[in-house]
């Protein structure tokens, strides 16, 4: 179990990570989610022992302060793989094994097993320079897993890849980590990636953890408006507007708390309890996206200007139309 207690990292006298407390249980995958520059990669490097830090880092209760990187047994996978270009794919994967003096047939078998695991069986003799971006990341993953690290540190492992590949590899990554029961700390700015791969997540902002918990908890109750927007909620409503929306969705009265809504929280529906005037219409492959001025009609949301809504593709909606809107309660979150 990894414990991070009050850890701070300073660059040039300025804290880029300040007072972070987190735990990663054995076999668990924790995602640290935050925008670029929030200090999440620095935190990861501190855990790896690559940045000097204040506070306490511990593994199974033992302090790591005096343990150098190479004795921690935490494998770090970089955003761009950082394969050793002068070694073949197999030698890259076997690097950590050779360090542990695992050689010969045993090392070859383990290397082959891992290349198979990441879907690159038979790539052993290739040089890294001949691989595509996705293949390089797969090799980097295999290399990190080969020495059976106590903890796997993943620094934006999929960010350098294009969207389609990223989605596919995120699924693979989750299956591989689950299958091996690997304990992992994943750092990313992409909430989709975090949701796909992790069990729990921590949201970081300007060097601090603003919220941590199980995926569904964080998702259902973002700590504040910033977190909600970062997690992909489209808007945050406050005061009477929040109360009206909750009432229309059949939710409990938020009691003065703000409410975050997904882009698809309001759906055009004749039987809806809210109304508004359509401002703009944009078609996407699966549905029509609308921007609705909800402050007008008599069933509007008081004090709110525009909100997002969706309509089925077949619904003929034009700017200027009056529409009725239904609230999808699952796509609304009351802020903590």
């Amino acid at each position, binding site marked *: 179990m990894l414990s991070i207690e009050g850890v701070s990292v300073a660059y040039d006298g300025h804290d880029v990570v300040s007072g972070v407390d987190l735990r990663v249980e054995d076999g668990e995958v924790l995602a640290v989610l935050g925008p670029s520059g929030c200090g999440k990669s620095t935190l990861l490097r501190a855990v*790896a022992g690559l940045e000097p830090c204040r506070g306490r880092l511990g593994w199974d209760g033992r302090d790591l302060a005096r343990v150098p990187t190479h004795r921690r047994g935490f494998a*770090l996978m970089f955003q761009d793989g950082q394969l050793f270009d002068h070694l073949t794919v197999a030698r890259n994967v076997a690097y950590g094994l050779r360090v542990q003096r695992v050689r010969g047939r045993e090392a070859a078998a383990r290397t082959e097993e891992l290349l198979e695991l990441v879907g690159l069986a038979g790539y052993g003799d290739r040089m890294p320079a001949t691989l595509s971006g996705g293949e390089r990341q797969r090799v980097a993953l295999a290399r990190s897993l080969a020495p059976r*690290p106590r903890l796997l540190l993943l620094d934006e492992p999929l960010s350098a890849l294009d969207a389609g590949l990223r989605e596919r590899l995120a699924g693979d990554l989750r299956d591989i980590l689950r299958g091996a029961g690997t304990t992992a700390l994943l750092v990313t700015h992409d909430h989709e990636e975090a949701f796909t791969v992790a069990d729990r997540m921590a949201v970081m902002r300007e060097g601090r953890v603003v919220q941590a918990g199980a995926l569904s908890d964080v998702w259902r109750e973002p700590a504040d408006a910033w977190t909600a927007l970062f997690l992909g909620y489209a808007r945050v409503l406050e005061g009477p507007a929040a109360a009206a929306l909750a009432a229309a969705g059949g939710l409990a009265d938020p009691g003065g708390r703000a409410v975050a809504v997904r882009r698809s929280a309001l759906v055009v529906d004749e039987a809806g309890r809210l109304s508004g005037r359509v401002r703009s219409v944009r078609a996407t492959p699966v549905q029509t996206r609308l921007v609705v001025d909800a402050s007008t009609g008599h069933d509007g949301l008081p004090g709110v200007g525009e909100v997002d809504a969706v309509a089925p593709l077949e619904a003929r909606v034009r700017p200027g139309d009056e529409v009725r809107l239904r609230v999808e309660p699952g796509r609304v979150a009351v802020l903590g």
Partner: protein
Amino acid sequence: MTPLRRVAALVVLAALPTAVLVVFFVVPVAGMLGRGLVVDGHLDVGGVLEVLARDRTRRVLWFTVWSSTVGTALSVLLGLPAAYTLHRLRVPGVRVVRAAVMVPFVLPTVVVGVAFLELLGESGPVVRWTGLELEGTSVAILLGMVFFNVAVVVRVVGAAWESLDPRPAEAAATLGASPARVLLTVTWPQLRPAVVSAASVVFLFCATAFGVVLTLGGLRYSSVETEIYLLTTDLLDLQGAAALSIVQLLAVAALMVLAGRLRPREDVRVARVRARPRRPRRGDLPALAATTLVLLFLAAPMAALVLGSLRVDGGWSLAHYRAVASAHEDTYTGSSAGQALLVSLRTSVDATWMSLLLGGLVAIVGSRRSRSRAERRVRRVLDGFFMLPLGVSAVTLGFGMLLTLDSDFLDLRDSPLLVPLAQALVALPLVVRTLLPVLGGIDDRQRQAAASLGAGPWRTFLTVDVPVAWRPLLACAGFAFAVSLGEFGATSFLARPDDPTLPVVIYRLLSRPGTATYGTALAASVVLAAVTAAVMLAVERLRVRTWGAW
């Protein structure tokens, strides 16, 4: 631009440097070789072979090879820890030290010779404290070579080490590799091209060292370069000198092709993470200790030189410096040291603008992207052509100029521009090697973006190339200035008898017996070293990474 216009532009830019190199380099060197090879109107190959079969020639060749090999090995061995300490660690005063380490490389060879004589001579500290008599031994020559070339290793390897992406090493550490293992399995493979490249350049410099071997080697040791000098000036054996020059030229050309192949090709266009220098840890102690040793080794001869220049008849005095400053003309050297310093400075200014003009043109030609294979080949041949001065004995060049530029249709023998021109040619390869990577490193798309926004070729050059290149250009100016200030090999032939440069005067003072003139030589050496060092420190402040990127 049409292909025809591209080729025309290339020819126009390359015309001036090519013409200068042909007239003032190829013709003299060829003339010098011709004198030796052509006897009584026909080619005499047997004579050349006869020279090569001589016992003395074989001894000279053997000495050159082994002394250069050992000198190179020692320079690399001492240079590596210093490169690490000075480029990867955050130590107080590191920038000043980095600049100071570079000074020996441009110190006039004559000055270094004098300094080592002071250090190792009969009354020098080494003899007094350890009883080791090294003067006139091969050890003294090796020490001199290492003194010059540690700087090259520190520079080339240090720059590579500094720009090394730290992340592969970090990845290895997280996989359990100890620092020693990381060094061996990750850092060394990344660094190897730079080390090999530095070693091949150092070998080149060791093998063509002139002043050091001449002043420290005495009569017992002679390298190919000093042997050419002796054969030409003392024995008037032009055939022997030509034979050795050819051997040298071939060996150096082969070495340069090899070095070119091994030169690290860092793609400057790729964005890389650069390591921040970090505070030293306990594991860095060996490197720190080795670096301290290197610094002491570099400082010792200079300290001995300064101390020696201040001693007069067992007491301390500035008398030698007063002698340097006096305008009194010495009948033996044909000039006063102060006057010679003025001549040196004037000459160096001329040499500087010449080498910048020629080197700048060559760098522009070499850095433009080629569109066709033929065009690329032309550029590569030109590039190699302008590296030639690096590999040809300065003595051969100087004597060749003396011989060929005296003819009726090309009488430049008495031109005051001849000495600076020769010095500019010596500095040319260094200027080109510094500027070329800078201009080549500018992403061509920047120029294309400028052009697409309506900038013509001239404006593109001014707004894209110049802002990046002006610092390196300034650094080159300082570098060329320093090199020409200390140039001795070619200048010793070409300097007019009544207008010698300071290194020539120092050499003349040294060859005359008498303690008073020896003291003056020491003081003059200190002055010359101080001027050179000041120029180098100014260059270092510009922080140009490519300078020294051979």
